C-alpha cells in the first residue's frame, strides 16, 4: 500500500479494498521500522488513528474529500492545535500550538490523516537538516548523506515511503533542494498562493508553503487542498485556484524551454549536468523547443538573499523572548537577562548567525547600504526572470550544483553551505513558482530537474512534470531497504 499514488489509494478506500485505519496503521508501522532516518520530530499515533476512524466513517457515508483517509505528514513549521510545533528548535521544544495553521486546517478539512510532524532545519534555516535541535535526518538513498533542507524530514519521509505525501516550505530552496536530494517531486508555489497563516515565519517576503510527494499528480492533489486566498494572511493573493489535475495531460508540443547559461556554468558538477541534459532531450522528444536565455544578475541572488532573509528573520524571531511562550532561561536577573539568555540558550548557532547578520544589516547607518541595496538587486533579478519568461514558457536547469553531500561535510563552513542554494534562491526573490522533478541518478544519488514558470502557472508546471513522469520512471524508484 505504501507505494501507491493518492488517486489509487483513494479508489481503494472508496471500493472498500482497505480502510483508512489499515492504511494509517501500515504507515505508522513503517515510521517505527525506519526510525533511524530521524524524519519525524513527533509521531501523532493516537490522533492519526482517531482521524483515520473518522475518515472511514466519512467514506462509508460517501462524504469524500480530495484526501479523505490519506496519511500525510506535516513539516513541523506548521502550527497544529494541541500538538507540539517545534520548528526544529529548542526554543519551541515545549510549544504546543494553540491553533491550526490555515494549511493544516485545509488539509484536515480535505480529510487527510496526519501521521506526525517532520524534522527540519531550525526555523527553516539550513540546507542540510543538520541545524535541527533534534539531530540530522538521513538521506534514505545513502544514509551518510544529508537529505537537504530545510524540509529534509519531509523529503526523506516521502522518499522512504513513510507518508504518502508531505507539506514543506521554501524560502530559498527548502522544498526543491531536499526534493532533488531525495528523488521526490516538490513544488514551491507562487508567493501568495498558499497561506502563511500559522506557518512559523522566517523571511516573510520569501516564505511559501507547498506540496512534496512522489509524483506531479500527487503534488497537484495536495496543492489543490493547500492553495487559496486567506483573509488571515495579509500577503495572500486573491485569485481563484484552478483545477490542478485537469490539465496534467495537456500536450507539450511547442513548449518553449529557456535554458539560462548562468545555470550551466562553473560550479555545476558534470554528472548533474549530464542528467539535466538528458532530461531536456526527453522534453524535446515530447515536442518542446529549447532556447538559451540569460540571467545576468543571477550571481547577486545569494548576496541579496543573505541580506533580505536575515533582516526579516531578525525581526520575525524577536517574538521569541521567553515571556509569552517557548523557552525561558532559569533565574533571570532582570528583563534584559531574561531576553538575552532565553534567546541565547534557545536558539542554535545558524539561527543566531542569521539574527546577528540581519540585526547588523538593519542597524542605523547600514540600512541603505545593505537592506535597500538588496531590495533593489531583488528587482533586477526579478526583471531578468520577467524578460526571460516573456521569451519562453518555462525555464529549466538543475536544482542543485551537486548531488546530496555528506553529513558533516559542509556544516562547519556556512558560506559554502549557502552557495549550494545558488540555483534556487533567485526564484524566491522573484516570487515565482518552481518545481523539482526526479531526473536520474549520479553515483547512486538522485538528481533534480528544476522547472520555473510564470506567476501562478503552477498548473502548467505540474503538467510539464507529469508528462515527463509518464515517459520516465525516475520518480518511481525506491531507495534500497525501503521497498
Amino acid at each position: 500500500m505504501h507505494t501507491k499514488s493518492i488517486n489509487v489509494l483513494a479508489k481503494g478506500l472508496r471500493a472498500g479494498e482497505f480502510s483508512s485505519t489499515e492504511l494509517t496503521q501500515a504507515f505508522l508501522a513503517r515510521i517505527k521500522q525506519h526510525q533511524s532516518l530521524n524524519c519525524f520530530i513527533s509521531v501523532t499515533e493516537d490522533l492519526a488513528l482517531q482521524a483515520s476512524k473518522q475518515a472511514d466513517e466519512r467514506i462509508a457515508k460517501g462524504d469524500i474529500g480530495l484526501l479523505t483517509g490519506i496519511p500525510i505528514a506535516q513539516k513541523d513549521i506548521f502550527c497544529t492545535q494541541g500538538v507540539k510545533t517545534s520548528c526544529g528548535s529548542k526554543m519551541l521544544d515545549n510549544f504546543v500550538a494553540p491553533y491550526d495553521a490555515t494549511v493544516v486546517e485545509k488539509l484536515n478539512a480535505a480529510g487527510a490523516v496526519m501521521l506526525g510532524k517532520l524534522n527540519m532545519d531550525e526555523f527553516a534555516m539550513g540546507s542540510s537538516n543538520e541545524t535541527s535541535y533534534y539531530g540530522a535526518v538521513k538521506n534514505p538513498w545513502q544514509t551518510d548523506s544529508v537529505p537537504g533542507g530545510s524540509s529534509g524530514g519531509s523529503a526523506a519521509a516521502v522518499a522512504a515511503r513513510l507518508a504518502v505525501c508531505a507539506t514543506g516550505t521554501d524560502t530559498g530552496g527548502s522544498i526543491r533542494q531536499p526534493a532533488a536530494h531525495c528523488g521526490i517531486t516538490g513544488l514551491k508555489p507562487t508567493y501568495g498562493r498558499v497561506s502563511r497563516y500559522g506557518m512559523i515565519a522566517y523571511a516573510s517576503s520569501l516564505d511559501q508553503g507547498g506540496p512534496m510527494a512522489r509524483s506531479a499528480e500527487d503534488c497537484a492533489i495536495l496543492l489543490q487542498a493547500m492553495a487559496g486566498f486567506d483573509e488571515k494572511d495579509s500577503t495572500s493573493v486573491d485569485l481563484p485556484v484552478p483545477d490542478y489535475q485537469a490539465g496534467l495531460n495537456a500536450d507539450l508540443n511547442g513548449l518553449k524551454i529557456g535554458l539560462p547559461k548562468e545555470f550551466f556554468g562553473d560550479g555545476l558538477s558534470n554528472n548533474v549536468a549530464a542528467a539535466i541534459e538528458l532530461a531536456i532531450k526527453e522534453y524535446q522528444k515530447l515536442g518542446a523547443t529549447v532556447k538559451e536565455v540569460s540571467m545576468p544578475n543571477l550571481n547577486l541572488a545569494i548576496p541579496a538573499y543573505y541580506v533580505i532573509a536575515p533582516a526579516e528573520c531578525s525581526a520575525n524571531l524577536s517574538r521569541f523572548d521567553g515571556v509569552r511562550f517557548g523557552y525561558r532561561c532559569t533565574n533571570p536577573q532582570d528583563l534584559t537577562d531574561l531576553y538575552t539568555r532565553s534567546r541565547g540558550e534557545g536558539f542554535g548557532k545558524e539561527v543566531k548567525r542569521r539574527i546577528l547578520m540581519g540585526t547588523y544589516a538593519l542597524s542605523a547607518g547600514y540600512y541603505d547600504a545593505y537592506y535597500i541595496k538588496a531590495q533593489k538587486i531583488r528587482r533586477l533579478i526579478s526583471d531578468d526572470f520577467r524578460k526571460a519568461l516573456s521569451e519562453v514558457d518555462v525555464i529549466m536547469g538543475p536544482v542543485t550544483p551537486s548531488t546530496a553531500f555528506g553529513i558533516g561535510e559542509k556544516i562547519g563552513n556556512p558560506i559554502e553551505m549557502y552557495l549550494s542554494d545558488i540555483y534556487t534562491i533567485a526564484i524566491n526573490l522573484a516570487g515565482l513558482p518552481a518545481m523539482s522533478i526526479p531526473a536520474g541518478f549520479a553515483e547512486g544519488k538522485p538528481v533534480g530537474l528544476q522547472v520555473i514558470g510564470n506567476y501562478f502557472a503552477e498548473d502548467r508546471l505540474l503538467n510539464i512534470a507529469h508528462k515527463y513522469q509518464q515517459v520516465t520512471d525516475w520518480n518511481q524508484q525506491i531507495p534500497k531497504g525501503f521497498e
Partner: protein
Amino acid sequence: MTLTADEVKKIAYLARLGIDQHDIESYAHDLSGMLELMTQMGATNTDGVLPMAHPMDQTQRLRVDGVTESDNRSNFQAIAPQVEAGLYLVPKVIE
C-alpha cells in the same frame, strides 16, 4: 569588510541575543565572510531602481476595523512560562 569581536558583541546586544564568549571570534569570522559576499552587490549600479518588497508589488491589504477574534487568553497563557492572575510575569523592571 571585517567585523571585530567588539562589533559582534554590540550587534548581539542590539538583538538581545546571548552568545558564548568563546563563540564570538567564530561569529566575527562567519559574519565577515557574509559581508564579503555582499560586497559583490556594490559593483552593480542600482540608481533609479525601486526597492522590491513584494513579488507582485502588492500593498498591504486593509480590513474592516472590527473584532474578529474571540477571547483566547486562557489558552494562550496555558503555554506561557510564568503567569499570574491573567498576567505574564517578568523580572521587576521598576524598582
